[in-house]
């Protein structure tokens, strides 16, 4: 039983910290999204839904619907989606390869995978400038994809690997004994067992890819501006905090929908195993 006293001795301080530095800031962000920009990043009343209108494409100045933002969101979803797809193509087989090695070799291969993963994110993105610049590929969309896949691939492989490791291979043998072709046997007996890891990997790749502004900023140039760049810009050059706040909610909304779908399919345990 969790009594009040026990709560404050264990969970309390951490929960309180997250309430102050996570929940309150997001609540404040919601408040800002209802305010109006006055000038030089200053905000003031009256309360208005203008920023939210702009997020969904309504231009208050011209009183018409200009869905530029939604195009940026659409492009971000496409770029994040395609990057995730590339991660699946590269990482899903890799997870199987690692999982099927003898124990010693397996831990060496995992170490090899973790080293780039723990190398500073900016350095990993920056290194691609050195490689792609001689080919005149910085900035470009290709560079953005390469940078994204490179940055997020280990996030994808690790959860997939941990579910491949738990696969019961006897089911595959059974399916083959019953006459299924190798591909059919794999799809029926192995693939479903790796699904929780696959979904976790997809989420852990797709979400940061959707929210990033660093990769597109350094490797993509203005043409591949994503929703993350749009948000960053409102807190930098454009100095429009209310609009930036509303855009952040759009981004967060996209993420929370994904997470909610995941929690519904994987349940409490799945949510805890996400990392």
């Amino acid at each position: 039983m969790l009594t009040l006293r026990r709560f404050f001795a264990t969970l309390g301080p951490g929960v309180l910290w997250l309430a102050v530095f996570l929940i309150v800031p997001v609540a404040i962000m919601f408040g800002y999204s209802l305010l109006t920009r006055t000038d030089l990043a200053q905000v003031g009343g009256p309360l208005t839904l203008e920023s939210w209108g702009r997020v969904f494409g309504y231009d208050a100045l011209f009183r018409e619907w200009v869905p530029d933002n939604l195009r940026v969101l659409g492009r971000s979803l496409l770029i994040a989606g395609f990057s995730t797809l590339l991660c699946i193509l590269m990482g899903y087989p890799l997870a199987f390869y690692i999982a099927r090695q003898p124990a010693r070799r397996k831990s060496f291969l995992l170490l090899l995978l973790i080293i780039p993963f723990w190398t500073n994110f900016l350095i990993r993105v920056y290194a691609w400038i050195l490689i792609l610049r001689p080919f005149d590929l910085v900035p470009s969309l290709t560079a953005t994809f390469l940078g994204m896949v490179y940055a997020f691939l280990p996030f994808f492989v690790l959860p997939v690997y941990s579910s491949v490791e738990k696969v019961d291979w006897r089911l595959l043998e059974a399916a083959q004994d019953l006459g299924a072709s190798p591909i059919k046997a794999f799809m029926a007996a192995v693939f479903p067992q790796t699904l929780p890891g696959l979904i976790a990997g997809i989420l852990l790749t797709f979400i940061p890819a959707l929210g990033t502004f660093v990769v597109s900023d350094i490797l993509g140039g203005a043409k591949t501006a994503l929703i993350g760049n749009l948000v960053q810009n409102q807190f930098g050059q454009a100095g429009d905090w209310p609009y930036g706040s509303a855009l952040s909610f759009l981004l967060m909304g996209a993420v929370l929908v994904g997470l909610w779908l995941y929690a519904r399919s994987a349940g409490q345990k799945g949510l805890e195993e996400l990392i």
Partner: protein
Amino acid sequence: MMRRTHPALSAWAWLVYGFLYLPILVLIIFSFNDSKFGATWAGFTTKWYGVLLAREDVREALTNTLLVALSSTLISTVLGTLVGLGLWRYSTRFRLPLTFLLVTPIVIPDVVMGVSLLMFYSLVRGGLELTGWTFENGFWTVMFAHVTFQISYVALTVRSRLAGYDRSLEEAARDLGASSVQSFLRVILPLALPGVLAGALLAFTLSLDDFVVTYFTSGSGFRTLPVLIYTSVKKGVTPDINALSTLLVLFTVIAIIAANAIMRPRPGRRGEA
């Protein structure tokens, strides 16, 4: 048995490993390149390391990075360990909301976390100005922000480490006459220790690595290494940044190998994290 792997699968795996290591190798090679403009090889030199070590701003950023990482890791490890223990030890109907609260900092886009903290700090500053006392964004604002995303990682690592153990262990200790503090220190903490260390190490690395949250919460006078690298890259690539990156990669490799040695799973139990 299913030990053998298809040659195509092996070839694919090694291609992916090649892809993972190509940029790191290029980075290391170019940090020894005598040319100021990276693309061509102009002979071997170690001068960029000298240039780097002479840079005042690099040393300052390094100190800032380490100070933030050490202090935020210390706070988040204490708070996160307690949360992890509480989650493991007590059953409560608030389990699902608690889990959600802990997963949020991990899945929330870091740009959203950064800008919301920026607004939070500016509002707190506005409030404090009324009392005549004020603060600048810098060490403290960055450090508190880092603790916020580290707590979850520590808590979930500790909880998953304890997941296999029976809760009655603590009760047994209590039955044998240990006080609650004693049973915590002598029984539970030693069991959780590998998880605590792994969580702390993860928290430390996350802090060293973080750019986005730091960028929004640091103000203009306080720079960490990732922020310094970002500003350098925006201004145009200089070879001493290759040298800096190479040193950081080297540091990462040493840290991971050391961590691996510390956390090597004992026979009979699968070591996660």
